[in-house]
């Protein structure tokens, strides 16, 4: 089986899982007391945010590996991960305001996490603009690797600087020192969402990587 069809199979599987997330979120989780139905978007929004962060982290990691080993496969992977990350960032940035409007009363606010994710999106876009603007493959790989590493290090700073402002965003409920404060059915759905979006990330990257490899052999 070619890499491309492997990616396609992973994606079909991921989409099937995604349908399951909708079913679980709509039919098998309780309605949250204060936020009502709007809270249901959480099962898509938070996993999408997770995949975005994962994508950025792996762009940074692949960039470091590229500079160390000068293997073009790392560069190709970083490019694919950035593209897929942009898509997940779009999901995150559209589902967030849809939830915020009824719950916070505003589409957008300059809260710590919102600002962070917006800059994550801008970083992804800048990264791809840079890649598009450099024609020579060696220079493109080098430049984008440098930018990828810078981007990875920028995130903690943006997070800290916006954290020093007061935050409106719901605080962590799963990954925190004490036990997750989420009813069982909600937690299971959320974790299932995480798994689904990770599968989708892998599927998208595999398929995109296969196309990029074919491109490299043709051109």
């Amino acid at each position, binding site marked *: 089986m070619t890499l491309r069809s492997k990616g396609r199979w992973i994606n079909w599987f991921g989409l099937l899982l995604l349908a399951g997330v909708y079913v679980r979120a709509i039919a098998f989780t309780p309605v949250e007391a204060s936020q009502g139905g709007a809270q249901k978007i959480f099962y898509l929004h938070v996993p999408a945010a997770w995949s975005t962060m994962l994508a950025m982290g792996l762009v940074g990691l692949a960039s470091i590996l590229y*500079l160390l080993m000068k293997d073009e496969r790392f560069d190709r992977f970083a490019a694919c991960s950035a593209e897929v990350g942009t898509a997940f960032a779009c999901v995150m940035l559209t589902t967030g305001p849809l939830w915020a409007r009824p719950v916070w009363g505003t589409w957008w606010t300059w809260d710590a996490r919102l*600002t962070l994710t917006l*800059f994550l999106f*801008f*970083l992804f*876009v*800048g990264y791809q*603009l*840079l890649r598009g*603007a*450099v024609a020579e493959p060696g*220079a493109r790989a*080098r*430049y984008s*690797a*440098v*930018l990828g*590493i*810078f*981007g990875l*290090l*920028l995130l903690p*700073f*943006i997070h*800290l*600087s*916006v954290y*020093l402002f007061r935050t409106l965003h719901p605080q962590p409920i799963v990954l925190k020192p004490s036990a997750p404060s989420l009813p069982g059915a909600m937690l299971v759905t959320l974790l299932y969402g995480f798994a689904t979006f990770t599968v989708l990330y892998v599927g998208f990257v595999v398929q995109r990587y296969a196309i990029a490899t074919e491109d490299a052999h043709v051109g």
Partner: protein
Amino acid sequence: MGELLRDAWVVARKDLALELRTRVGLISAVVFTALVLTVFNFGRDPTAVGVLDLAPSILWVTFTFAGMLSLNRAFQLELENQALEGLLISPIDRRSLYLGKLAANLVFVGLVEAVGLPLFALFFNVPVWDILAPLAAVIAVATIGFVAVGTLFSALVIRVRFAELMLPVLLLPFLIPPLVGAVQVTSRLFSHRPLSEVEGWLKLLLAYDLVFVSLASLLFPTTVDE
């Protein structure tokens, strides 16, 4: 280490000599700064917004814009007659090249800020004299941070199409931490609050300088490597 800094100084001196002899870049940047400050004056409703509320943002948006425009020239001037190749084959460490460019950019942006600050105080009637020392320190710390990243990025975009546009697009996200920190500290200074209130921001600014100056000098050799 001594040699590294000595070579860096040679590179910086070359850039500054070039700049001070033509003065076109410097004068344009100063005029640009004055113009942005003027534009800001008309961009607010003086009856609705107090000038002190807006002053820190005006100061920092002006400085970052002026800084960003100045950064383009650092490596752009090496494109003529393949001067960059000459620099790269000269027997100096690539890190010296970066540190020299960084120093020259800092002097350049520092001069622009040295003219911009009195103009800002004059135009907006902000009393800066009694807080001059801490204000200058904050300006220096924040400027080092964004010029460090900007110097590396200007080397990154040098051979890129639309370099003038690409540099701000790549650099602006990186200006956020120093910009936010500087605005916070500046506004506390203007309202004569104790600096202990902004300890977190000061630490953030210093950490940013440390991390990005080190990272940029580490990655610069790979960036310019042919």
